[in-house]
């Protein structure tokens, strides 16, 4: 696409005029075998050995119909076993990521920011004991106990000032140990101080460390090895501090040279692993213990023994969404309900929530399981409602804080002049969800709404919020926060005096809007047909959307029975996304996934980390956005590793492949490879004759095919 555009660009003085596309390729039919391959390439994450025969046996249209009814497909038992143990660690509302719809009791280790606002946390930390007490007096008693349970520094500071009852309650809930506990860094210092220590000059760091009480300094330095290096660089006289640090973990500069540290920080994963392999195992563990960023990056790639040693030495919470991502990958590889998995991926991405945004780390598992998955083939209106009623979305797009402003009364003015209550007085509207709801979830950016509509929709959704995350972070509607005035949305009047139904009415208007039917149909066609799908097909799908009141299964039936879907224009027209590339490679080779973590990390290396798209747009559906030089090289490296059984956690017997490139091609591509591809492989192997390299193996040849242009398309 890019190159075609580029040519056009040269001709049209750089401006690409919308080419008069005829879409004639979408009128050209496929052969019977091509039709089966096309259906498998689009309704699944790529064919496995034996799939083509199975579809042939069943009949293509019957197989498609079955995929459209996943409840009629018995789920793969092996998969259930694999996914069940995956549990997202800690946090309010711990969910089993497995197939079973189980919610276990919350094992709570909350941070203070989940009890009060981040500003209030900062204010507590920065304030004096007296200011702390004034603020705590504004909170309900249970909250004070909870809060002091998780803010040990503040607890120490205010404990003597609490009334005796409350003090007992706090103490019984949080026994104070005799020795100062090892506090997390965020409890010891403000984010600004941490930042300064990380990036300040040696002198600044040294000066600051000197201002801290000895014990605190030691705790800080023990957790910031790079800083202790700096302090040493400044030739600090703080011998005491250093000796205290030395009793615990040796600082980094005693373990590695600066070059080695640099290599681990900035080198490639492979270089890092190679270097660690040269160290004694105990030392490797020590090094990883003091380099958290490196640990996070390399941990999933370590061999199982070393990984266990590191995990034991440094118990680290998994990355947000890590186990969820592993579950997603396992399902994509193993599930027999392939279309359902493809659609969960599609709709999650359409209603994207970034798992790395604050409390969303605890909510995305439930979001996908309860809001997305049950509706992927249902009514669009239900899917939309489920996402709007989810704490994950309300948090991600900030709606949970959007409130009607307080009326201007003497009480409000009193609030405004009180530094602690000032923030509560400043409450008001937040447009974020309202805008993205129309731009990304329903109408599309050109769907015909104005800035005024955005504000009106935001007013309708005031009060759609989240219960105290402490109770598990559930969705709730707060009538006190709701704007009771009249609103006009896309020309429709929503009368004054309404409650939650104002938002429901907006969802009705949007779900049944013509722009939504077209926008959703086009996105589906982009996913299943081609980057630039024929408008005639989109129009027919939109008509079905309209006629069936937004029935997704009906819209997909229109798509899967269209001539455009089974046409030359659609056949192999899509470049696989990073996720599709990795999953299809595992499926095509029949590899067994024993630990999904290394594969999840490979997907990040290809450019689209699972559950971690920052922006609400989700990842693009068009191939030109993810086809890049860095991405291609990463695919090639992965292909060679996988086929030669070198990806940790994945088992594959390279001996199963033929040694003749053309035959391996049929094993992996399920069709013939391009002649250029086969020629290139033969040349690379024959150039090799007489060199001191090991003779080519079938695994190497299979890897070359998995990295070939042929395999990058679906």
């Amino acid at each position, binding site marked *: 696409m*890019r*190159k*075609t555009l580029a040519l*056009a*660009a*040269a001709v049209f*003085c750089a*401006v*690409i005029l*919308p080419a008069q596309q005829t879409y004639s390729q979408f009128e050209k039919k496929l052969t019977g075998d091509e039709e089966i391959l096309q259906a498998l390439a689009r309704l699944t994450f790529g064919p496995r050995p034996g799939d083509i025969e199975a579809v042939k046996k069943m009949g293509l249209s019957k197989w498609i119909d079955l995929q459209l009814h996943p409840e009629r497909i018995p789920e793969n038992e092996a998969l259930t076993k694999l996914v069940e143990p995956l549990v997202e660690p800690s946090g309010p509302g711990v969910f089993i990521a497995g197939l079973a719809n189980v919610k276990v009791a919350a094992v709570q280790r909350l941070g203070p920011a989940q009890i009060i606002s981040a*500003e209030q946390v900062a204010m507590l930390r920065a304030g004096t004991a007296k200011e702390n007490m004034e603020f705590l007096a504004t909170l309900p008693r249970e909250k004070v106990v909870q809060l002091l349970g998780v803010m040990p520094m503040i607890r120490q500071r205010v404990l003597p000032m609490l009334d005796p009852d409350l003090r007992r309650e706090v103490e019984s809930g949080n026994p104070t140990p005799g020795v100062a506990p090892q506090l997390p860094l965020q409890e010891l210092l403000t984010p*600004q101080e941490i930042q300064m220590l*990380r*990036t300040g000059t040696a002198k600044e760091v040294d000066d600051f460390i000197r201002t801290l009480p000895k014990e605190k300094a030691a705790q800080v330095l023990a957790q910031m090895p790079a800083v202790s290096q700096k302090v040493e660089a400044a030739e600090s006289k703080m011998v005491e501090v250093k000796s205290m640090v030395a009793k615990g973990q040796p600082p980094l500069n005693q373990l590695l040279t600066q*070059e080695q540290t640099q290599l681990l920080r*900035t080198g*490639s*994963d*492979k270089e890092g692993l190679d270097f660690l392999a040269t160290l004694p195992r105990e030392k490797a563990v020590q090094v990883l213990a003091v380099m958290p*960023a490196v640990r996070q990056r390399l941990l999933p790639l370590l061999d199982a023994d070393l990984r266990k040693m590191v995990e034991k030495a440094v118990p680290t919470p998994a990355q947000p969404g890590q186990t969820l991502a592993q579950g997603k990958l396992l399902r994509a590889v193993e599930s027999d309900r392939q279309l359902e998995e493809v659609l969960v991926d599609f709709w999650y991405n359409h209603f994207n929530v970034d798992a790395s945004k604050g409390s969303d780390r605890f909510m995305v598992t439930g979001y996908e399981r309860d809001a997305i998955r049950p509706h992927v083939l249902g009514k669009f209106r239900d899917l939309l409602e489920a996402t709007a009623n989810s704490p994950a979305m309300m948090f991600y797009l900030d709606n949970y*804080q959007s409130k009607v402003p307080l009326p201007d009364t003497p009480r409000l003015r009193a609030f405004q002049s009180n530094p602690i209550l*000032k923030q509560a007085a400043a*409450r008001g*509207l*937040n*447009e*974020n969800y309202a*805008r993205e709801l129309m731009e990304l979830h329903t109408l599309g*950016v050109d769907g015909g709404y104005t*800035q005024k509509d955005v504000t009106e929709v935001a007013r309708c959704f005031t009060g759609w919020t989240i219960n105290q995350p402490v109770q598990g972070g559930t969705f709730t509607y707060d009538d006190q926060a709701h704007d009771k005035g009249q609103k006009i949305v896309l020309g429709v009047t929503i009368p004054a005096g309404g409650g939650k139904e104002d938002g429901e009415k907006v969802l009705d208007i949007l779900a049944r809007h013509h722009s939504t039917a077209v926008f959703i149909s086009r996105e589906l066609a982009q996913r299943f047909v081609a980057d630039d799908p024929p408008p005639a097909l989109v129009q027919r799908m939109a008509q079905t959307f309209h006629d069936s009141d937004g029935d997704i299964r009906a819209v997909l039936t229109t798509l899967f029975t269209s001539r455009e879907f089974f046409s030359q224009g659609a056949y192999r027209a899509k470049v696989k996304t990073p996720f599709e590339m990795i999953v299809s490679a595992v499926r095509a080779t029949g590899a067994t996934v024993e630990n999904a973590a290394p594969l999840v990390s490979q997907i990040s*290396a*290809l*450019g689209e980390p699972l559950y971690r798209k*920052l922006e609400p*747009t989700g990842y693009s559906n068009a191939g030109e956005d993810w*086809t*890049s*030089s*860095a991405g*291609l*090289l*990463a695919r*090639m*490296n992965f292909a*060679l590793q996988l086929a030669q059984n070198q990806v940790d956690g994945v088992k594959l017997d390279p001996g199963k492949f033929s040694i003749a490139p053309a035959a391996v091609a049929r094993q992996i591509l399920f069709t013939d490879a391009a002649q*250029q*591809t086969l*020629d*290139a*492989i033969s*040349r690379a192997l024959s150039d090799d004759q007489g060199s001191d*390299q090991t003779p*080519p193996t079938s695994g*190497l040849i299979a*890897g*070359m095919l998995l*990295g070939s*242009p042929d395999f*990058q*398309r679906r």
Partner: protein
Amino acid sequence: MFSRRLFLKSSALAMYGTSTAPAWLSRALYAADAPSPRKKILVAILQRGAMDGLNVVVPHGEKAYYTLRPNLAIPRPDGTPDSVIDLDGFFGLHPSLRPMKQIYDAGDLAIIHAVGSPDPTRSHFDAQDYMESGTPGMKTTGDGWLNRALQPEKAVSPVRAVSLGPELPHALRGHNEAVAIDNLNDFKVRDTRGASAFENMYAGSHDVVLNGTGREAFDAVKRVQDIQKQTYTPAANVRYPTSKLGQNLMQIARLIKANVGLEVAFTDVGGWDHHVNEVGAKSTVGQLANLLTDFGQALSAFYLDLGDRMADVSVVSMSEFGRTAKENGTRGTDHGHANVMFAFGGGIKGGKIYGDWPGMEHEQLYEQRDLDLTTDFRDVLGELVTRHLGNQHIASVFPGYDQPKFRGLLS
């Protein structure tokens, strides 16, 4: 084929021998051999998410700024660490941008205020796309302004246009070769036989997209393989932050110093969409302050690391649109209009704030809510492309905008 550059090289070696060639000659040789290593270079930084320019370069002389933002305004400059760092008595820098002050004071940093895209959209996606294509309001532009800024030449380096990250952004797409490099050290196929097979199969493929991207990738790999053999040490006392932006700028510096023919580079930094809790308990803590701390440190590290070489390099930053002049109900700001840009290096006349200030009184605001626009972002980029990169064909870099009003950043 007997090329001129081969002739030069061999005759020079014949005259002086390999080890005794004087410095002037080896430079001349290199200039003839490689695409000129001392080309002018433009580095573009896109701050995705719509940075709140009013809290970055603060109009502290504007009364309405303080009225509209009772919870978010940065205190007027009074020398304390949390107050605005004054620049000219009216504008000042956010206190977390202290490292940028040195560049400003050295006369190298230019600030352009009330600048941005004239398109009224408040969609992140569309606005970023317009800023990258360089054609606001036109959705069908397939290539990007930074790619079009490259000039046709006979021998070009395969790494003349580089984006740091796993994907090639719209700004760099187009008919000139451009590559995405996520991590310089990783930019290769590790197995030599695999590399050879892949290079040939992509070069021979009829698949236009994969053929083009594959060729570019392997040409670029060859160009950077020497760099990969060495570890990079920045100039003395320069520390890049460990953030993605810091590391990306360090890799750009590494490419520049290695003289591999870089002409334009692109990197982005996300997270500026602060609808909630933009500012913490004080101005130097909180989400915006954290991002600015990193931003200032990364940019100043780059500036100090390149040292004298900055004479050839210009850096320009932009963000898709600004944010509401008034704070919203959740201690944040919503999507707005005009914003602020930074530009430094390469002979830019800095130490100055460019642009006309539209004011922030109610009737002066765009649609009664946002900072109005007085400079089109293409005026700034167009000037850098013309006067820094020396590309005179501004009409093909910014089609439909062939009369940009240069602000006089460069002479």
